[in-house]
Each structure stands twice: as C-alpha cells, then as structure tokens.
C-alpha cells in the first residue's frame, strides 16, 4: 500500500509514443492503451509505425517499432503532431523517436537495455542517459527488465527470456498509473488472449500490476493525469482501421446489391490486409482470388464484372501502374469495376510502409488515350467504409471503372467508428436487362440510358442478348468494331459526358466555416485530420479561414467553382508535389492557388498547416 499521496492534474489531451524493438510488443502495448482509453470514453486516434524490415536485428534502428496514440476529452482527428511522452524500451527506440518528442517532454526509459552493445547498435558513442544530452526533458529511468524479472520470479515455467517478453506489460501498467487508466480491460484481454498459455497469462498480468504498483510507490510518479470523457455522438462504437473499413464497405455494397463480391488481387503493401479481411467473409459469398500478378488481378475482376458480380481489385501505386492497360479495357467495355489504390511512398518501389498521396494524377491520366475515370478519395480510416460503398454505387450507376484512393496512413491507422445499423443502409439498385432494346429483337450493347448514359449490363446466361464487346474503337449503340472518324469522336464524347454527368447526381460540396473569406484551404484524402484541426484552431482565434475537403475528385462537385470564387486565396496542402492543385488550376484557373507540399513519408502535422494559414493571413 502506498503512503505517497498522488496529485491529479486535468488535461485535455495527451499524445504518447511507445517505441521498442519489433519483438517487444510495442504495437500490442499501444493498442491496449488506446483500447482502454477508448473504452473509458476518450476520443482516440492512433498511428502505428511499423519497422521497415521484416526481421531487423534486435536493437538496431531498422528494427524499431512504434505506436503513437492521441487520447483526449475532445474530438481528435489526428494521432497528434508530436508526442509529449515517449516510452523507450531500448537505445535505438530512444534515438529514433527522440527528434519527434516535444521540447520538455517526458521520457520513460528502460535503463537495463542501455548496455554498451545496445548503445553501439543504435549508433550512440556515449550513453545519452549520462552524458547530459537529455537535459531539458523529464527523464524517468526505470530498470524495467530487472523489476519485471523480480516481479515474475515466482513463475517457474518460464525462462528469463520468456519473462522478458512481459516487459511491455510492465511499461503499460506504469503508463496506466500515470494516466489514471483502469486495469480491468487489459486484464480481461490477457486472460482471453493467452488462455492456452496460463504461465504466460500469469506473467503478463503480474507484470501489468507490477508496473502499476511501481508507479504508485515511486515518488517521481505522483503526478497523475486525468483526461475526461470526450463528447462523442451517442451510439455503439468500435475501433477500425482503414483497410478493414474498406473491406466491410465492399461486402456491404455487395449485400445491398444482392450480388456476390469478387475481389481479384495480388498482395502488395499496404493493401494486402483488404484481401486478408475479405477472405474471411466467405459466408457472404465473397470470392477472393489471389491472382498470379497485378494484371491477372484486374483481368479476373473484369471477367467477373462481365459475369455480373460486384467486382473489385485492390493495390498500391506500383500495382496501379501495371493495371493501366486493363483499366482502359474496362473503360472501353464500359463494365463496372472498382480499383482501390492504397497509396504509399513512390515513385517506383518507393517507401512501401510510408504514406503519400501522389497517385492522384496517375489515377486521373495514367492511361493511353482519352480515358476519363471517376476518382474518389477517403478522408479517414472509418470513412473508408462509406467511400468504398460510394465507389461501388458510382461504378454500377455509370457502368465504368472507378478508382478509390486511400493511403497507408488511413489503411493502417485506426479510429473509433460509430457502428451503423446495417438495415438502414439503403439498397443499391442494379438492373440487368432481360429483353432486347433495339428494333427487330436486336440487342444493342451500347445503347445508352438517357439520364446516366450508361450502357445496359447484360450478363452471359441471359437468353437472346448475346453480344460481343472489346477494346477496339466502336460504333455507337451497336458497339460493332468501327474505325469511322465520326463514330470514334462520338464515343469519346459520350464516355466523357457519362462521367461528367455524375456531378448532377453526386452531392454538392460542403464548406466548413464561412462561405466567403480571405482564405480557403482545399484538401483531399488523409490530410483531412490535420487540415480540419488547423482550420478549427485558426477559427477559434477569430481568423477568416474556411475548409473544403474534397471527396469526389472526378468529376468535381458541381458547386465547387462557385465556392472557390468566394475566397481571395486558396491554400492546397498535399502529400505530393502538387497534384490536386494541377486539377484545380486546369478547371478553375483564374484563382490564386498556393501550394503546400510535403513528400517525406509522414502525414502533415496540425502545426504545419496552422502555421501556413497564419503566415498567409498575415501577408494579406
């Protein structure tokens, strides 16, 4: 029992980074902390930072695995610009995460791992815990390994090395003490997860308690922080990553269409998880096909669409590049397919585990010939659910391939998701003709719907509608092969018009903030969190700035031009060298567009956008 008396401080939000070796269970520690925080009612946002190498040598910089969580009593949109607290399990973790820590931040280190060898592996010439280089930070030196082993000394069935694997629970227990979290959710989780290994379960639980009690009994940790529940909309919530949300969205769309879902794909970072999730939904008649390469992935998807399935293929930047010829075939065949690009650092192999938004122009133009394809982008992890459904709706409405853009940050990051009522999600109407649509009982495969300009989706197995389609230039209505000059021009025009008309049916663009002002920030994709937060902060100070976050990039919303006209200057922050801004200039050229570009593999911080907003407003 503790004789020390803790004092409590109330804070709005805290950002913690857990960093250690890939074998230390940092991802698990981080998710446990964030899960507990979510259960306790804080809003959370997380960002796992996986090590780049699969089995990097222990203790090296290449093997550092991190997990950042931002938990708050208010609504948070990002995992936090910079952590205020760093839990570093070894020197390499300290070295790699320290540059991100806020000045004066708190560091909790496992001193037992600061051996000469580990320091050398991390590239330290001297011990940072002793040479004064950490002055200015609040450093808590904890002999974690020793204390953990001591706490577990009575457990006979485990070796020292196995006991060391519970270290992360010790660290977790300590942070639970400091941030006034309850232990019961994690205790229950340990029992469930390690039910088959009771010695391990016991060790983990003991370690958790030990860390918590260590905090309780140590003078240095007598300041505890309380973070109130956030005011979230009432409802039932769960955590979800972007990739899982995408998978759920696709299976929902298929169910709402009453169709099997076909997913033809080839594994690629960071999109493979979508395949993994979908392959477990077989009882929803989800047919996943791990093809021999990217092109077979999209080829099989096109064949499946011809057969009447809701057909989707998923990939990342390099895969999208391989799929371009086939994407164009789908465009000429005017068949509905969805192509999901979970963007990553490029070009070429680039940085597979880092995030970027640089495939936009590829999605728009990366094909031969005049090739308009609708493009839609998700704005957050949970939003991937709605965006995936939207992409499917657009595809079947306009009988066209659709590209949905996500990215690694959204795909792997998680946020709370208010679970919708499945029955309330509207069905998606799909019509397959059963009768000929031409004179004399003929079927015209390219006779267009007067409103949507889509051609009929006649599927094999339907008597009387036999027809052939292909990638060659064609005659309107009949779809017969034609190189006639007028025919070609007409079909080019019709396909462009078909995509443009979607703007009449898709929602209008909303503005966050005033409809007019000095500065408008226009963003797309995963920059939503940082941008919205930055604009919110600026507006709270009375600044005249508004935010437009675009989801429908092709075609643009029909009122976008009018909105842009109401602002003096327009800031476009993007994780690329300027791609949305190129599209905006092409269509709405007469405005002053200011670019804010960043291609570092990391998301924008709120601070970066906020400061840019301020500097622009100060200029004018």
């Amino acid at each position: 029992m503790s004789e020390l008396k803790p004092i409590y401080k109330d804070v709005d939000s805290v950002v913690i980074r857990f960093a250690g070796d890939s074998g230390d269970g940092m991802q698990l520690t981080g998710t446990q902390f964030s899960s507990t925080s979510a259960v306790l009612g804080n809003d959370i946002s997380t960002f796992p930072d996986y090590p780049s190498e699969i089995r990097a040598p222990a203790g090296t910089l290449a093997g550092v695995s991190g997990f950042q969580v931002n938990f708050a009593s208010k609504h948070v949109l990002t995992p936090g610009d910079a952590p205020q607290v760093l839990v570093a399990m070894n020197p390499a973790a300290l070295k790699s995460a320290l540059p991100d820590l806020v000045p004066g931040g708190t560091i909790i280190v496992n001193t037992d791992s600061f051996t000469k060898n580990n320091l050398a592996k991390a590239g330290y010439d001297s011990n940072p815990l002793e040479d004064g280089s950490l002055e200015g930070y609040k450093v808590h030196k904890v002999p974690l390994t020793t204390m953990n082993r001591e706490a577990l000394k009575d457990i006979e069935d485990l070796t020292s090395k196995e006991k060391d694997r519970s270290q992360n629970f010790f660290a977790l227990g300590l942070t639970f003490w400091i941030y006034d979290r309850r232990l019961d959710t994690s205790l229950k989780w340990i029992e469930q997860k390690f039910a088959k290994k009771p010695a391990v379960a016991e060790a983990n639980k003991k370690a958790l308690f030990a860390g918590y009690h260590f905090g309780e009994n140590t003078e240095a940790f007598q300041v505890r922080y309380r973070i109130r529940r956030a005011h979230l909309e009432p409802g039932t919530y769960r955590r979800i990553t972007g990739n899982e949300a995408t998978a759920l969205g696709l299976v929902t769309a298929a169910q709402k269409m009453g169709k099997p879902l076909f997913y033809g794909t080839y594994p690629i970072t960071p999109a493979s998880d979508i395949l993994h999730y979908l392959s477990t939904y077989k009882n929803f008649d989800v047919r996943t096909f791990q093809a021999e390469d990217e092109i077979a992935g999209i080829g099989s998807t096109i064949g499946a669409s011809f057969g009447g399935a809701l057909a989707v293929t998923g990939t990342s930047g390099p895969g999208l590049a391989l799929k371009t010829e086939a994407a164009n075939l789908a465009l000429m065949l005017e068949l509905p397919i969805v192509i999901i690009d979970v963007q990553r650092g490029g070009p070429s192999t680039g940085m597979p585990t880092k995030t970027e938004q640089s495939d936009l122009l590829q999605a728009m133009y990366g094909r031969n010939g005049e090739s308009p394809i609708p493009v839609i982008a998700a704005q957050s992890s949970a939003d991937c659910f709605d965006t995936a459904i939207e992409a499917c709706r657009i595809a079947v409405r306009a009988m066209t391939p659709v590209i949905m853009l996500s990215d690694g940050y959204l795909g792997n990051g998680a946020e709370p998701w208010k679970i919708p009522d499945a029955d309330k999600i509207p069905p998606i109407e799909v019509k397959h003709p059963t009768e000929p649509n031409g004179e004399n009982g003929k079927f015209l495969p390219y006779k267009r719907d007067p409103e949507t300009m889509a051609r009929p989706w006649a599927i094999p197995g339907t008597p009387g509608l036999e027809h052939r389609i292909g990638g060659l230039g064609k005659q309107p209505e009949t779809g017969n092969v034609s190189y006639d000059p007028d025919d070609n021009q007409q079909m080019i025009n019709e396909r462009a018009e078909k995509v443009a008309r979607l703007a009449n049916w898709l929602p209008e663009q909303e503005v966050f903030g005033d409809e007019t002002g000095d500065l408008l920030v226009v963003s797309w994709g995963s920059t939503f969190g940082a941008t919205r937060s930055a604009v919110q902060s600026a507006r709270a100070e009375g600044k005249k700035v508004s935010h437009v976050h675009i989801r429908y990039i092709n075609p643009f919303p029909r009122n976008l031009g009018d909105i842009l006209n109401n602002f003096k200057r327009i800031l476009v922050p993007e994780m690329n060298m300027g791609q949305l801004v190129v599209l905006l200039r092409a269509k709405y050229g007469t405005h002053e567009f200011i670019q804010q570009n960043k291609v570092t593999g990391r998301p924008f911080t709120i601070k970066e956008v906020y400061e840019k907003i301020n500097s622009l407003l100060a200029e004018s």
Partner: protein
Amino acid sequence: MTEVTLNLTRKDFVSDQMVRWCPGCGDYAILAQMQRVLPELGIPKEDIVFISGIGCSSRFPYYMDTYGIHSIHGRAPTLASGLKLTNPNLQVWVITGDGDGLSIGGNHLIHTLRRNIDLKIILFNNRIYGLTKGQYSPTSLPGTKTKSSPMGSIDPAFNPTAVAVGVGATFIARTAATDVKHMAEMFRRAAHHKGTSFVEVYQNCLIFNDGAWDYATNPKTKHENIIYLEDHKPLIFGKNKDKGIRLNGIHPEVVSLDEVDESELMVHYEDMPDGSLSYFLSQMRHERGMPEPMGVFRCVDEPVYEEEVLQQIDLAIEQKGKGDLQQLFYQADTWVVEDESSGQNGSNGQGGNGSVPTLGVDEEYVGVVFNDEASSEPYFSPTDTLSTLNPRQPLIASQDISLGEAIQKLHNLDVGLLALVDDNGKLAGVFTEGDVLRKVAGNVTDLDATPVKDFMTTNVTALKEDDTLAQAIHLMSIHKFRHILLVDDDNRPVGVLSSRRVAHYIQDNFAEN
C-alpha cells in the same frame, strides 16, 4: 446441367459480322468446325462465352453469335478465370495464338493451366505474328527470316505441349486446322472435359508464314510425319501403318513393324496419373526426326478450381451461417457512448459491454511471439557464445613491424595467427601461416626490410565474445577459416579461436551417445 432438348444449329452461332481474315487463312476452318460442334454439345447458347486476346486468332469472338469479349494482349485467361468463378455454369472458351498465349500471355497461361479452372483454351499456332505483319513468334523455328529477323531468328522454339505437361494441365491435345474431322473431335473432347482443356491447333498463315506446317498437313507427307494417338492403342503411323514408336530405355524411337512386333510398341494411355508419357509425346518433334503426335495427349480428372472455391463458400456458410452484416460490423469489441456523458471523469468510465477491444495486430504479435511451432524448429542455442569456448589470448604485435619479425613471432610461439594493431591497440590487420604459404614464401628476399603491412589482411572478419558459436561454425564451414579473431567493442583483439578448438568443443558437447 438440365436435360433440355435444344434445337441449335450452326446458323445459331453465326454472327452478323463480316469475317475479315485473309482469304485462305486457316482460321476459317477453325471457325467453321466450332460452329458445327457447339450446337451438338447440348448447352444453351446463352451459356457459351468466347474470350480472346489480341491477334488474328483473337478476332474469333466477333464471328460467333455468343457472348464474347475481345480483350487485351495475353490476358484472356485472366478474364475467363474471373468470369468462370462468378458463374461456373457458363461454358467459357479462350481463343489465343502463339504470340498472345505464349509470349506476353505466357505467365497467365501457365497459371491457368495449373489451377485447372474449367476453361477450354484453343491456341492457334501459326508460328508467326500475323496481325502485326510478320515478326517471328515464340514457336518459330530458329533461322526464321522475318522483318524483325532478316538474318534469321535466334530463339529456340517454344514447345507448348511440353510446357502444358510441365505445369500439370489435365487435358492436352493437338490437331491441325485442315484436319477438320479430327479437329472437330478435339473440340468435342475439350468441351466435355471437366477442368482446363488445352488444344494446340496447327494453323497456316499463308501471307506471312506459308507452309510452316506443310509436313504435317500435306496429304503426301503427313502420314510419315504425324502419328494419330488412340487411347489404349499402340503408337503406329505411316501410310501403310507400317511404323511404330518403341521406348528404348527412356527414349522413344521409330521402328519398322517389319522388324519389330506390335507388342513391343509404346501404348498410349490418356489417363496416366503423372505426365511422363505425355512428356515423351511432347518431345517428339519433326526437327528431331520423330513423327508429331496428333490427338489427345492427356486427359485426367483432377479437382476443378472453381468447384473447390464454391465448396469453401458452402462450408463457410455451413459453419458460420449465412453472412449477417450487423453481426460482421460488431465483430470487434465495442463500447457504448451514452447520452448523459457530460461531466464524467474519464477514468471512472465504464467499458461498454464488458468485452475487451482488440486489433488485428495483437493476433500477429501473439502468434509470432508465442508460436509453439516456432520454438520447436531446429534452433541453435544462442547461449553458446564464443566466450563459452574459453578462447586463447591472441598473439598481438604492432602493425609497424617487419615481415621478418612477424614470421619470427609465429615461428617462436608455434601459432598460426598474429594480430596487428595500431598505436591505440585497435585492430589493423592479421597475418597468418596461411599468408606465409600463399603470399610470402619464395616471393620475398629480404624479410626484415619488408613491412608486415604489405602482407597482412586488413578488413578482417572478426567476431565478438558474445557472438554465437553458430556464427563461428558458419565462417569455418563455408569460408574454411582456420582461426577466428575476437575483438571487443573498441575493436581491440581479445581472443582467438582455432578450428581445432571449435571441433573439440563440438565433439565434447554435441556428440550423441
């Protein structure tokens, strides 16, 4: 497949498109036979689909009045696979050529044959690229003179049936476009087979490669150059049926039936479980003086891919019940935010339904870290660090000494390795008895005037005392090190291990008895 009396005729399969092949093209014959065979199959017209890639052959779907897709170069099998997986009741034909199927499409063809999806793949082999006006193709014989190979092509010819055998195709056949009755029979067999059917058709391109198959199709010569395969019958050919194929060891050879009895001949079995017989048949090439087999090389029943896929779906439904979206959404752990959430302290909050949130990443961690299988793998104990072997102190000297001095030191102490250090005592190089043999003996006249620096090995592969025995064994077994130098964290030599010491350690500690 329901029993429906369909009164389909050839006319039902003729489309309204004008057929645009060159007059005299072998593709006409193939089209005609396909249009004869399809009505007899008992399959409703609307259930038949033709998918092609790019090439003269690939114009085929336009001339058939069925559902069809003229897709992109080499990719037809991928579309066909997706279509068949979506609606397995359709009969799907893939029309391809030697360029479309074996060059750009090679990868897809191989995997499609391997998977055994119920598709009928007809490959029109004319040994040339016709549509693009006459370049050589993968099946062209070396020496083919074309626009892109004016001095004759160099590539050896691709053997499609051999590759099909290699990848385990369950139905392999060959025919010739001009052998119309035979070809029709091959199409019928292919249609009836459950699984991927692969039919190679020798087809003549009279514009760009006229006569390429003459030896096999010309009535005057064909009987000596091809052999018709009949199931369970011996391999006999020749106008007068006077020649046969006999296996001499593992080599098929041509024999005369005047000299050899029919009972000695190779007998053809379509349903051999492995591909060896089919492989022999695929190796019988005209260029090697063998008659080329025509007919069904192989026809076996193996699991059909799309049936297995659907079985898994049925099994999943049986085990989990038909998919319920709401249940799926709730599959993670949840918490409830009530309406009266204001003012409550976060730390006293209640978890929603009492169950505990998880994330996919946890599964990974749990699996990897506590995986039973992982710990029972052969695993060389890392507790055997090199310090356990009690390494000796190494012989150390300054790198500035002469070669003569170095040799003297080795000689006097009768050791094999001398570590050379700089002024700070850090390792600069090593000099061994091996170096004496390899570099010094007979090459240096004045040993004392020669610095050892000129002969020492810099860039030393040294280990540390807490490195594992495994690492030392690795260096000694692969790179044949006889000594390993150990250094500390400051790169100062602290120990040496000889292969003798390591061998002794292994014998003392790891011998089974």
